[in-house]
């Protein structure tokens, strides 16, 4: 078939040469072959997407928060210790007096600590939520990138196919073209699958 095509073109050219037109110094057919061979080494492939994040990076600083939860309650009342003698009684009285004097301050201090711990808890929770949200968004963006890359690969494969109007109805794409499509998009989709 190809041979016939070449022969036919040769005959056409001879026919034109008979009309007095010299053969062109640059043969377009040879030039096209040369261009194709030059460009054949260039292959386009979509950019491989970044691997998707696999674990959450929590803001929780475990030891410090745990300490806060265990030590937020300060002593605000005096607990007398049984002690014999005058010295013991005197110490208990003095302690009770001091604590009675400082109780309002210590209570306020404890309230402050309670609220600080609660605020820290809330912040920690919010940080976790935001981290989750960032991860979700990043994964969504990456999934979108993967889809875009896959789409670009399909476009590249489609652009190298014959025009649809030339394909018979129900025709399968040519093996080379479909192979090319698979090759081009396979890397991307498998990366996505691995990452996702």
């Amino acid at each position: 078939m190809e041979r016939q095509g070449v022969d036919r073109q040769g005959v056409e050219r001879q026919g034109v040469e008979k009309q007095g037109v010299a053969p062109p110094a640059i043969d377009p057919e040879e030039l096209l072959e040369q261009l194709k061979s030059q460009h054949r080494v260039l292959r386009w492939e979509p950019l491989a997407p970044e691997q998707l994040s696999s674990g959450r990076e929590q803001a929780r600083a475990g030891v410090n928060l745990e300490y806060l939860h265990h030590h937020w309650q300060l002593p605000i009342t005096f607990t007398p210790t049984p002690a014999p003698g005058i010295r013991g009684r005197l110490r208990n009285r003095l302690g009770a007096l001091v604590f009675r004097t400082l109780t309002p301050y210590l209570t306020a201090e404890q309230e402050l600590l309670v609220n600080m711990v609660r605020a820290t808890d809330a912040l920690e929770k919010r940080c976790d939520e935001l981290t989750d949200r960032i991860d979700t968004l990043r994964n969504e963006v990456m999934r979108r990138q993967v889809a875009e890359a896959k789409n670009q690969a399909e476009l590249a494969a489609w652009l190298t196919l014959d025009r649809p109007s030339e394909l018979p109805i129900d025709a399968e794409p040519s093996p080379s073209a479909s192979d090319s499509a698979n090759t081009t998009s396979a890397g991307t989709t498998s990366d996505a699958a691995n990452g996702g």
Partner: protein
Amino acid sequence: MTNSIDANRDQDSAAFAIPLSSASATGPTVVVLATQWETSSEAGWITRQVAGALACLGTVHVVTPGGGIASVRTDGVFTVHHLGGLLRPQALVEGNVVADALAAVDRAAREQSALTGPMRPETTLLDRGLTEAWSPASGVLDDLRPDLIVLADHRNLGALAAIQRHSPTAPVALVALDDGRGHLELAEFAPVLDRADAVLAITEAERLRLEARMAARGMSAPVTRIGAPMVANSSARSEPNTWVGDSDYLFVLTDTSSEDASVQTELARLLTLRFCDRPVGIAHTDGFFAWHEGRFNDGWAIERSSDRARLMAWARVTIDLRHASLFGRDVVESLLFGTPVVVPHDSQARQHAHLGGGGLWFEGPADLTWATEALLDPALSEQLSRQGKAYAEELFGSTDRFIDRVIEACQLDVSDLPEVVRSPSAAQA
């Protein structure tokens, strides 16, 4: 029907030099049978050019169906006979669709059976809506008694029937107008070829197709390549189009709208992206779009041939994304301006790039960009420009040579006519 034509032809084929029965100082009477008498299509335009060439020699009557009421009017040097009645516009489209389908069926059958399988039965679907419109033509032919009948289009079965009713032996020259879609191979249209005493082809590729088909049918009517009368409009080089300027721009021709989701529109868009560093002028059906560095200016659609010529004359490369309906008139015009071309590989216009060395062709988007990149190289562009221009000027660039070829192809015996009428170009020289 075929047998009777062959029998009649045999009587005349010994020496086919058409004697002028009504020879006089005014020359022969020629009747052109054309389904459509217009110049918007390449087929209509070349039919008119052939008629014009013959009008240099004699009186040319054009017979065309349709027109509502039967009438005779003057159109320049031609007398146009409208046969009246209604020629449904859909009839031509339907005929082409059926012919395309049959050609595809035949092609598939040939490939599968390697020319040995049974052929399908002939169909009359192709005649529907077209044959009847030609019925009054035989009466017009009887009245005019032409020395030569020129039949436009090898698919014109209605006109053939009218010729047969008028005179089975009248000399007939066929302007084949084969567009390479495989209709030439259809058995339904073979009687038209069989009846022709001379066949006129526009390009070398068409001539070879016709010769092959005639040989397969065992017919010996001469097939002559007549080319087309085209000249590069000299005023086109006087001033560039301001939309794209006079720098090295690409001129892209499409026959789609800018909003169509079509291959042509996508390829044009690809060109604007790939060659964003230089102006790209795209002629869509809904406007002209001049892209440069990602921005575009749009204007009215290119409708005047002088505007198109101006854009081609100043362009670095003409990229015709359309599939030429007959021979790629715009591509030839571009070559006449010395502007190399890039065309689809399956377009009839490819032969000009291939045989004339005036450009390149593409199969897919990658080829399109490589070919365009290559033609932007000044040295290569210069060489292809020279080659293409020489080819186009030799084969298409002379009206006088076209007239001579048409007269010679129609084999009119003009020995009795004055020299100035017999050979206009020689007389002019």
